[in-house]
C-alpha cells in the first residue's frame, strides 16, 4: 500500500463536508446520485433505443424482466462492494444471503400477506441476521481462509436447502405461491393463486407507451425495485463518505495500525459484512417479489462467483462500478445468449459465402450458449489490464481525450488503487 491510498479516504471525507451538495452529499456525489436517479427513472426509454421490428430490436433491453434484474443485481453488487471494495475481504459465499433473503420473502408472502413490503423488510432482516452468524465465525480468519470459510458456509447452506431443510425450502423444486396458501392478511378468496402486490397493485402491472415504432414499457415491479436501488445507492454513498467508511478502508490498508490506535478492525468488518448481507437479503426479497418462486440453485457457489465478477468488472471500491458491472453482465447474459447462428448469418450476409461461414463459425464461439466464454475472457482482460474495472477504463479513456477533470468528478478517486 502506498501513501496515496491512505490519503485518498481522507480527501474523500473532507470532500463530503464541503459545500454545494444536496441530500447531505458533496457536490460531485450529488451529481452522480442525480445522474443515477435520472438513468434509472428513464431506463425504459434509454434501454429501448431501437424501434420494434427492426433488425436491431434484439439489442433492446427495455423489457420489465431484464430491467428488474439490472437493478436487483445492482443492489447485490453495491452491497458486495461495501464489503470487498472497502475492506478487501473477498467473500465467495454471498449468494447464501441472497438465497436466505429469498426464502424469507416467499414465506412472508405465503403465510403473512401478499403485500411485498413486509416480505422485503423480512428478507433484509433475515439476510442480515444470517450474515451476522456467518460473519461472526468467518471473520476469525482473513485472506484466503476467509474466502474459503464463506464459500464453505454457502455451499453448506445450498446443500442443506437442497436436502435436509426440504420442509422449509421445498428441496430441489423450491417454493412457489400456491392456491392452497392462506396468508393472514388479504389472501385471494376465490381459490386462485395469489400474486405479490403493493397495496393491491400487482408487480406485473405495466403501462405501455407507443411513440411511432417504439414501444416503451413502464412496469410497477421495476419501479419498486428501482426505488430500492436508489435508496441502496444513496446509503452506499453515505457509507463511503462517512467516518465508518474510512474505518473500513483502514481495515484494508493497515489492520495493525488500527489495532495500535485502539480500534478493533474485526468489529468494523463484521458491520460491513452484515450490511452487505442485508443488501443481499434485500436483493433476494426483491427477486421473490418480482417472480414469486425460489430454488436452492440461487445459493450455489457459481451465483456467488457471479456477484464477485460483477463487482470486479465494474470496478471494486468505486461507487458506480458495481452497478455498471451488474448491468453489463446481465445485459450480456440476456442479449448475447439470444444470438444464434441464423442471426449471425443475417449480419454477415454481405460477405462472400465461404467467408461468411468461416466468420459465423468464429463469431459463434462468443455468443449463444457460449456467452460465458466471452464473460470469462472479458473478466480476465479486466483483471489483467484494468484492475479498477470499467470505471478505471472510462477514466483512462477520458484522460486520453483531455477531459480528466470530468472523470474524477463522476467517479470515486480511489478507483485506481481499489483492486489491490
Amino acid at each position: 500500500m502506498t501513501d496515496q491510498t491512505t490519503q485518498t479516504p481522507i480527501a474523500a471525507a473532507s470532500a463530503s463536508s464541503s459545500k454545494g451538495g444536496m441530500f447531505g452529499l458533496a457536490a460531485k456525489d450529488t451529481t452522480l446520485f442525480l445522474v443515477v436517479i435520472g438513468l434509472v427513472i428513464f431506463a425504459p426509454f434509454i434501454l429501448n433505443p431501437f424501434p420494434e421490428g427492426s433488425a436491431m430490436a434484439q439489442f433492446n433491453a427495455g423489457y420489465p424482466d431484464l430491467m428488474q434484474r439490472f437493478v436487483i443485481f445492482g443492489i447485490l453488487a453495491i452491497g458486495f462492494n461495501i464489503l470487498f471494495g472497502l475492506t478487501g475481504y473477498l467473500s465467495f459465499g454471498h449468494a447464501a444471503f441472497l438465497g436466505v433473503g429469498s426464502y424469507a420473502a416467499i414465506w412472508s408472502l405465503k403465510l403473512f400477506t401478499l403485500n411485498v413490503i413486509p416480505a422485503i423488510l423480512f428478507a433484509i432482516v433475515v439476510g442480515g441476521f444470517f450474515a451476522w452468524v456467518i460473519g461472526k465465525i468467518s471473520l476469525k480468519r482473513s485472506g484466503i481462509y476467509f474466502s474459503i470459510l464463506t464459500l464453505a458456509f454457502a455451499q453448506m447452506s445450498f446443500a442443506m436447502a437442497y436436502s435436509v431443510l426440504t420442509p422449509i425450502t421445498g428441496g430441489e423444486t423450491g417454493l412457489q405461491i400456491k392456491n392452497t396458501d392462506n396468508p393472514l392478511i388479504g389472501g385471494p378468496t376465490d381459490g386462485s393463486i395469489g400474486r405479490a402486490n403493493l397495496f393491491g397493485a400487482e408487480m406485473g402491472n405495466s403501462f405501455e407507451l407507443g411513440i411511432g415504432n417504439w414501444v416503451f414499457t413502464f412496469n410497477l415491479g421495476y419501479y419498486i425495485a428501482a426505488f430500492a436501488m436508489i435508496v441502496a445507492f444513496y446509503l452506499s454513498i453515505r457509507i463511503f463518505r462517512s467516518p465508518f467508511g474510512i474505518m473500513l478502508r483502514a481495515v484494508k490498508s493497515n489492520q495493525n495500525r488500527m489495532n495500535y490506535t485502539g480500534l478493533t478492525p474485526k468489529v468494523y468488518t463484521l458491520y460491513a459484512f452484515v450490511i452487505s448481507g442485508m443488501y443481499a437479503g434485500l436483493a433476494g426479497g426483491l427477486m421473490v417479489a418480482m417472480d414469486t418462486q425460489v430454488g436452492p440453485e440461487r445459493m450455489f457457489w457459481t451465483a456467488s462467483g457471479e456477484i464477485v465478477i460483477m463487482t470486479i468488472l465494474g470496478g471494486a471500491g468505486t461507487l458506480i462500478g458495481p452497478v455498471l458491472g451488474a448491468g453489463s453482465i446481465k445485459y450480456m447474459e440476456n442479449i448475447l445468449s439470444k444470438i444464434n447462428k441464423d442471426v449471425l448469418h443475417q449480419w454477415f450476409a454481405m460477405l462472400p459465402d465461404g467467408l461468411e461461414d468461416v466468420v459465423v463459425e468464429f463469431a459463434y464461439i462468443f455468443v449463444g450458449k457460449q456467452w460465458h466464454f466471452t464473460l470469462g475472457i472479458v473478466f480476465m482482460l479486466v483483471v489483467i489490464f484494468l484492475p479498477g474495472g470499467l470505471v478505471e477504463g472510462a477514466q483512462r479513456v477520458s484522460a486520453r481525450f483531455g477531459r480528466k477533470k470530468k472523470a474524477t468528478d463522476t467517479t470515486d478517486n480511489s478507483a485506481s488503487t481499489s483492486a489491490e
Partner: protein
Amino acid sequence: MDQIIVQILNGLDKGSAYALIALGLTLIFGTLGVVNFAHGALFMMGAFCAVVTSKILSSSHKVVDETRTDFLGNPLEVDVFYMQDWFGETAGAAIMDWAVPLAILVSIPVMILIGFIMERGLIKHFYKRPHADQILVTFGLAIVMGEVIKYYFGANPIQTPAPEALSGRVDFGVWLGYGPNAIVYPMWRLVYFFFSASIIAAVFAFLQFTTFGMVVRAGMADRETVGLLGIDIDKRFTFMFGLAAAVAGIAGVMYAPIVSPAYTMGMDWLVLSFVVVVVGGMGSLPGAVLAGFVLGIIESFASMPGVVNLLPGINQIIIYVVAIAILLIRPRGLMGRKGVMED
C-alpha cells in the same frame, strides 16, 4: 465390519482424487506463491485427454464388405477401425480397449505444455499482484477453459470406459480372509487408489531424493538465497507448475472411467480441493495428502445409510462442517506452517 471396510475403500478412492488435486495446488502455491483457481480446470483437461485419446484410437473408416449384404440386398458397409488395420485384429482391439491407460502417456506432455503456457503466458505476470487478483484471474481462466471444452464436447458427460480386464469387480473380502462375496469392489477404483498412491509417492520421492527436488525445496524455503547462489530458480518453478498440471491431468485421466467427464467437473472439484488444501494447511504437501484422504474417508462414512438416516443430508455437508471446525480449532490447518497466507 465389511461395511466399514467398503466405506474405507470408498474413502481412499475419493480421497486419492482429492489428494492428487490438492497436491498439485499446494505445489503451485508452495513454489510460486500463486493461488490457482484454474486447477480444477486442469483436472478436467486431463479427463478430456482420456476422452480425446479414446476417440482418436477408435476412429474408423467405412469399407464395403462384398460378402455380406444388408436387408435391401446392397453390399454392407462395415466400420473398420484404423487401429485394427494397422496392428491386426486382436492387437488393435486391445489398444482401443486400453485407451484410458494409454491416455496417460498422451496427457503427460499435453498437460506439461498447458502448464508451461499458463505459467509463462499468464501467471508469471501475477507474482507481484495480491492473492485476490491471482484468484480472480485464474477463476476467469477456469471459466474460459470450461467453456472451450463445452464448445467442442457439448454439455453432456461423455462415457469413457475402463479397459475390459480392469472394469469388473474384485472379491476384496477373500484377500482379507472373509468369505466369498462379503466385500465386492469395482476393480478400477482399486487401480485408481494404488495408482494415485504411487504418483504421490513418486512426487515426494522426486522432491526428496533428486538434486532438482532438493533445489526446489530450498527455493520453497528461501527463494532469495537460492537465487543468490546463482541458481535459476524461476525456471525450476515453472517446471514445477508443469509438473503440478501433469499430476492434476493424470488424476483426471484415471478418474474418467469413474465419473464421466463433463465440462462442469473442473469447478465442482476445485471447490472441494480448495477446502482440502486449506484443511491440510496452505503450503504443506504432506498436509494436503493427509487432508485429502481424511476428508475422503470422513465423507464416505457420512454417506453410509445408517448415518444418513440418523442425520439426513449429512453426507452433503460433512466436508464443509469438518473444514469449518478444523479452521476454527487449528487456524493453520492440520499441518500448516506459520506465516503462510496470513496477510
